[in-house]
């Protein structure tokens, strides 16, 4: 997936087709957009099957399916549509609360809450997704986003409560500390890869665990642990170091703005800077890049530093924006989800941004689905994983839907390589 994927250009036709036929033909070819949408659709279908299979009430109605098929089908449909409607209401907007706002019975906060939740979940994922994406473009598979964001969260968090600085400056210092921490944790595998050829997949997986264990030790130490608490939780971040957020019930904070800026920055690095040119060259063909006079080792190291810094920013965003304290779960799964986000965004910066927002929407909607219908939040994990499986196996989607091959979309190309 390191190669540039180009949208299928309009095929040069022998006899001129009307715009509509051309459009329809391209629509049903295996281009990036169609495959992405069909992947999401397939994942939702499998998710629906899981919802039904795991509901004992509906399942018992399938017991007498042959005599009264209507019962089973109706209640299945009701269950699925209710669950997915909640997914939408929790993620985008709830018509009821918007209606209430217009009528004056509800608040504008309630109307915007779903979007706010989506963007809150999306913000750290943008950073970790970008971290994986930029490393991918240079031919490195950064599974260490989790560890890097944990170290980023530690550094950002400690800078947030251990020192006190004026408004503005404190926040900047805390964010920079997070980026530096992540960069350090990214430097290690990059350096090892460059110097000894140690495979970054292994070293970063291992460093994830080391970071998690270090965090679980650190938050029990005096000076870090909240003196009023006996459980593993740190002091609260100073007010000056917290990312500014919208008024109270809404949680969305400045992090999403920073995430968009970071996306633009990464897009510039990859496409416009000389380092970006080098990393793409190294990603496509290291020996050729070396022959052309680039230092592969230096590129690998610097690339992992940049990737680590991005993931560290994700961890810092999480602790400075939403969590406010360090706990063992402060980074949640943002590193691993960043991996999926990058794959879904096909390793391009803006694609990653949209993929992160989609994942944020799934997480936000999943919460409502769990509360309202009682469908476990784990379904969202399944959906997220399934979407990426289908995205990563376009040949499978192509076979299922009998898509015609797109002219130049390099969907099948993967970065397959060994250890």
């Amino acid at each position, binding site marked *: *997936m390191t190669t540039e994927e180009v949208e299928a250009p309009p095929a040069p036709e022998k006899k001129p087709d009307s715009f509509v036929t051309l459009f329809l033909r391209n629509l049903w070819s295996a281009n990036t957009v169609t495959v992405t949408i069909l992947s999401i659709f397939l994942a939702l279908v499998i998710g629906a099957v*899981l919802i039904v299979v*795991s*509901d*004992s009430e509906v399942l018992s109605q399938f017991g007498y399916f042959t005599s009264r098929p209507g019962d089973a089908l109706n209640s299945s449909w009701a269950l699925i549509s209710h669950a997915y409607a909640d997914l939408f209401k929790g993620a985008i907007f709830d018509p009821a609360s918007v209606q209430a706002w217009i009528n004056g019975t509800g608040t504008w906060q309630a109307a915007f809450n779903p979007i706010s939740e989506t963007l809150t979940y999306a913000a750290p994922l943008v950073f970790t997704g970008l971290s994986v994406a930029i490393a991918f473009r240079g031919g490195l*598979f950064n*599974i260490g986003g989790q560890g890097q964001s944990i170290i980023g969260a530690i550094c950002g968090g400690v800078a947030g409560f251990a020192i006190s600085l004026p408004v503005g400056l404190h926040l900047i210092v805390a964010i920079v500390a997070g980026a530096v921490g992540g960069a350090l944790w990214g430097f290690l595998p990059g350096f*090892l890869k460059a110097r*000894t*050829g*140690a*495979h970054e*997949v*292994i*070293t970063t*997986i*291992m*460093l994830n*665990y*080391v970071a998690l*264990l*270090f965090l*679980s*030790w650190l938050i029990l130490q005096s000076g870090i642990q909240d003196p009023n608490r006996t459980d593993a939780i740190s002091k609260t971040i100073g007010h000056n170091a917290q990312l500014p957020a919208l008024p109270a019930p809404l949680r969305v904070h400045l992090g999403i703005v920073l995430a968009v800026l970071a996306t633009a920055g990464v897009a510039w690095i990859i496409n416009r800077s000389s380092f970006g040119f080098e990393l793409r060259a190294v990603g496509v063909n*290291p*020996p*050729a890049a*070396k*022959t052309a006079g680039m230092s*592969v080792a230096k590129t690998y190291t610097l690339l992992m530093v940049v990737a680590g810094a991005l993931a560290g920013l994700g961890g810092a965003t999480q602790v400075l924006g939403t969590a406010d304290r360090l706990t063992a779960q402060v980074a949640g799964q943002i590193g*691993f989800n960043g*991996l*999926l986000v990058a*794959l879904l965004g096909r390793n391009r910066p803006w694609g990653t941004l949209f993929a992160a927002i989609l994942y944020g929407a799934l997480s936000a909607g999943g919460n409502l689905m769990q509360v309202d219908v009682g*469908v*476990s939040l*784990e*379904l*969202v*994990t*399944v*959906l*997220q*994983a*399934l979407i*990426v*499986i289908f995205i*990563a*196996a376009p*040949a*499978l989607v192509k076979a299922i839907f009998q898509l015609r091959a797109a002219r130049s979309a390099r969907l*099948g190309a*993967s*970065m*397959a*390589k*060994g*250890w």
Partner: protein
Amino acid sequence: MIHVSTATAEDLTEVSAPERFWNRPRRLGAGVVIIGLLAICLFGPLASSKTARFTLSEDSGGAALSINGDVGAYLFGAITVVLGVLMLAGVAKRWHTAFLVIGIVTFVFSFLCWQVAGNFLPVVSIADGTFDFALPLILGALAGVLGERSGVVNVAIEGQFLMGAFAAALVGTLATSVWAGLIGAVLGGVLIAALLAVLAIRFLVDQVVVGIVLNLLALGITGFLYERLMQPDSAKYNQPPHMPTWSIPGLSNIPVIGPVLFRATLLLWIALILVFVIHFALRRTRWGLRTRAVGEHPTAADTVGVRVRGLRYTNVLIGGAIAGAGGAYFTLMATSAFNKNMTGGAGFIALAALIFGRWTPFGALGAALFFGFTQQLAYYLSAGVGSSVPNQFLNMLPYLATIVAVAGLVGRVRAPAADGVPYTKS
């Protein structure tokens, strides 16, 4: 002396120079000297002069080896240094591997003398716990050996563990039979392996990517079904029977080895027998030769008529069965119920054991035992002795050891040449 490089552009990482002074034994020797000095300078002064007892039983009683804590720490540290110096000096070259192993063991003894001083360490229960922790790692790493020797990277061991653990709990409870549970676990592992195989071999998806995603898929599906089925009605779905411990008459009375190896569960014996069987089969059978050929040079193997993809399917599926059985450990042995994400990254340690053990069955066994030992030690030192070293740092040991191993400091590890490369007929 000028070394004329004949390296082509493909040799990126190493350009071999003839016999440098700091060759591998010397670097290792220097490493051993450094850890020995660390033992003398750190463990020695910190150790108290109280007696450290290593009892040959499961508790504080019975026969024991005793030594003063500080004496032991200094003594074993000194032995480590001597061994390192021998390696540095380059004497008795054929014994270097033995020196290295003994050096590391004496270093561990020095550390133990410091930690255990004024207390006791029950050798049998430590060994028992080591095998206990190592059991799933052995099975998981063997699954990896099968897949990767034939050229399919298996990062989905964690997912196979989880699915195996889940299926073992579910089937075991429904059938109220531990053996039905074990079969369920095998099928659960095969399910994930089949997805891995189809996506990686048929649809040519990047194998590391598909492995990582399958782990998440298994995590999601088992977690989802756990919350929807098992949590509301655990008596019906989540109370699997416990795997019985059998002892072999006669053999189980042998001191130390008996209680550890011959008073155990069937799963442990299966794991140990599989290590021997796979080792033998890889080296001596037609299947083994073909597997190695497919993993190193699939095109050549295809040319002489080996069905590359078919063999890869077979191996990945057998691997899935073995890893699934490893998953049964979590619900049928270690605990008595399934829980969300209960494997907690054991699959990744199994992956590390596979690489640490250089893609060989016995290497994997050794690495799994080493990781099991550090886990058991961390557990005992924090719970039993109240060690001054935080157990989080002891728990880091397997991960740090793996980083050291893949960084080539303990010797180069080399994966099968075609590992992770999908095979397409051109």
